[in-house]
């Protein structure tokens, strides 16, 4: 048995370093100083380059095989088509920046459109009808928000369930028949083209500015990014996580409501299949392609709009080139997988 303290060969070393050796930061955090800007910006660059490449490839193909794409008429048409997806994507960007997802947006849009249209068919008041659509959208969004933020339910599951409920209610209310015969003034106002620019496009521009302001220049917007980046740190930093998260779902619901108004006007009707299943994927794709991270905390509203433009042009272009609808789905899917992979590489992935 050893009876005295024995210094295990460390004697000399100990004497030469009597005080604590300060450890650099990295040692204690278990990871190196790897958050450096260079790697991050390299990825962002890669994403930009990828977008530019795919975009020019599509435009080049279109110029060669479908010159009709570049007619003014078609270009305006594309912008109008884009507006629906863009406004939905703006709403989704709030939820995604906060680290969540809202799968119920298209169903919410259809539901809101149907409710407003049912009212307009008897009430003939397009203003109240539009208001009903917007309020209905926000309400469904608020339900999602309460479930996710206050009841701590998983966004994916909650919004999937809301989607099913809204869709079921929609079909039940309409018997799968589209609700036509909306007041003429409804379509007249919303399909007008002041200075040659369709109202839907103007609305998209206005909403983009509004959303950008909300995200960058309001307290809730800044807090939303913080939650998306690091919820634990946000709690310590006094961010009211529940309220801010719930608000992001309300924003998504509002955008679904606004889209309902514009789309019902364009179709001059409302029906349960306005928000078919493929739309969710298009919304998420628009966001991801537009630089909004699926992991939260990163992205801009205008990115979502550019992403929506990109998705619409790819779909429309492939269509004009006579590519089968199903093949175009395959192409779209592959493009999205590529972008999600880039998103994961950017280091935000867990």
């Amino acid at each position, binding site marked *: 048995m050893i009876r005295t303290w024995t210094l295990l060969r460390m004697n000399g070393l100990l004497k030469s370093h009597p005080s604590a050796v300060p450890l650099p930061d990295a040692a204690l*955090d278990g990871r190196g100083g790897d958050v450096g800007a260079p790697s991050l910006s390299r990825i962002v660059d890669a994403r930009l380059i990828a977008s530019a490449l795919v975009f020019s490839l599509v435009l080049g193909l279109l110029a060669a095989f479908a010159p009709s794409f570049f007619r003014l008429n078609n270009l305006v048409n594309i912008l109008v088509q884009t507006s629906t997806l863009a406004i939905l994507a703006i709403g989704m960007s709030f939820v995604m920046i906060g680290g969540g997802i809202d799968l119920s947006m298209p169903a919410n849009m259809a539901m809101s459109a149907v409710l407003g249209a049912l009212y307009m068919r008897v009430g003939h008041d397009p203003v109240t009808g539009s208001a009903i659509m917007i309020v209905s959208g926000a309400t469904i969004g608020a339900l999602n928000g309460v479930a996710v933020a206050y009841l701590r339910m998983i966004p994916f599951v909650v919004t999937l369930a809301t989607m099913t409920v809204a869709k079921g209610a929609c079909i039940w209310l309409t018997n799968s028949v589209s609700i036509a015969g909306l007041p003429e003034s409804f379509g007249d106002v919303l399909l007008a083209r002041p200075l040659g620019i369709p109202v839907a496009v103007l609305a998209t521009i206005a909403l983009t500015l509004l959303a950008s302001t909300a995200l960058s220049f309001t307290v809730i917007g800044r807090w939303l990014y913080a939650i998306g980046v690091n919820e634990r740190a946000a709690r310590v930093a006094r961010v009211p996580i529940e309220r801010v998260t719930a608000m992001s779902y309300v924003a998504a619901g509002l955008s679904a409501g606004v889209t309902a108004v514009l789309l019902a006007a364009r179709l001059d009707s409302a029906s349960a299949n306005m928000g078919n299943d493929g739309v969710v994927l298009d919304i998420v794709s628009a966001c991801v392609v537009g630089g909004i991270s699926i992991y939260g905390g990163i992205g801009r509203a205008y990115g979502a709009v550019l992403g929506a433009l990109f998705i619409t042009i790819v779909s429309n272009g492939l269509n004009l080139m006579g590519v089968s609808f199903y093949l175009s789905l395959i192409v779209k899917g592959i493009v999205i997988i590529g972008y999600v992979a880039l998103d994961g590489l950017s280091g935000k992935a867990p």
Partner: protein
Amino acid sequence: MTAEPFLRMDGVSKRYPGVVVLHEASLEAYRGEAMALMGANGAGKSTLMNVLGGLATKESGAIFIDGQPVSLRSPREAAANGVAFVHQELSLLPTMTVAENVHADEFPVRGGLLAPEIMRRRTTELLARLGSKLPTDIRVENLSAGDRQIVEIARALRRRPRVVIFDEPTSSLTAWEKTRLFEVIAGLKRDRAAIIYITHFIDEIFATCERVTVMRNGRTVASAATDTVTSRDVVHLMLGETDNIVRLGKTPAGDAADDGGDVVLQVKDLSRANVLKNVDLTLRTGEIVGLWGLLGSGRTELLRALIGLDAIDQGELCWSRNGELLSITPRELRRFVGFVTEDRRGDGLFLPLSVETNIALPSLPALTNWLRLIVGKKLARLVHGMMERLRIKGSGPKQPVGTLSGGNQQKVVLARWLATNPRLLFLDEPTRGLDVSAKTEILKLAVEFALAGGTILIVSSALEDLMRVSDRYLVISRGSIVAKLPGATTADELKHAVSDDSSRSEFRP
């Protein structure tokens, strides 16, 4: 007693990018004996054990078991060499049964299919060896912490290990479960296993261990038989020398009286199950109170509970408002208290976001105009002012905070809270991982804050740092405040306070 050590780790070094975490560390363990491995936060004991358990690779050095050099590059290789690692709970799979957990790394198979009856039988045998009659078909999520520990041990013992590592096994056990664990360890010793026991509770090493090895800053600093040393010796070795303490700010008073300034926060009888027990404390204006305790004593847990980041089971908080002490909930208190967390990157900072956002986040509501929009000028003024005052160096307010040095990151966290003009700050390990000059800068800022009438409750494993700023000390051990000491307390007395644990008699015959 065996003359030759059964396990010998010799000159083991390991570095993570840019930093040495093990510097020629060594360790010897004998059959039929338990050896306590002690060290403060970051001393390298976990890394050394991860090397032994095959979870981390060493860069140099050698390991001998039973005189033979062995290579332990994976947990599988370690297991094959008879090394078993009982992890600090929760490496179990909660939704699987006891028997499945015990066999998770190697399910018994018969004819290509699982053989549940073999699994059950073997598990029952193993549990019986540990003196437990736990049903083998119950899901682990339904077990108490102590029973989970037993399952962990059963899993470790399945391959009849010759070296068993226990990593802080008692941190969440009840007194009865601890007694049972010590019996299990005694049984393992009778079976001639060599045991390595990591703990932060010094009393336990005298109850269960024959030898103790102390590590500090990646080096093995001492090794001895437990009956030749006192708990004070162990704490001294863990913490190292603490001479030449240059105090910042005022000279501390000689008494522990907390009747100086006006009361800012008064806490009575605060408890949280298994973590905090009947904590009473009073904080006054202009004082820096050092919350002194070893890792695992409940220091961080106390800070978190006070501001509602963890729930409490009981307790009353009173916060002074306009000279009146009014009852307040922990959640409400969070709105008034700045909290510099221990894990700066984990729950302190938003690494990809800018310095500006990181500093301004809790102050944002005060920077808006009538439209509720953030006014850029107000924001810039606040951030610029804070960056000047704390001398935060970087390319500017838009730089992502993750690209700053550790010292500047910590200043950003501090700036965030100072910007809210708080009356009370909690600093949890504020100097952790900082170089000497950054440490001093942070501590000076703390002193400045207190001189201006602010109150600070500070936690630090680095006793020198704590002593440089504290006006008095609260000593915390096992979730209770066990002593209140005056600012003039010496380093030796403070070390003594955390090693002198009255509960030792509980374990010692």
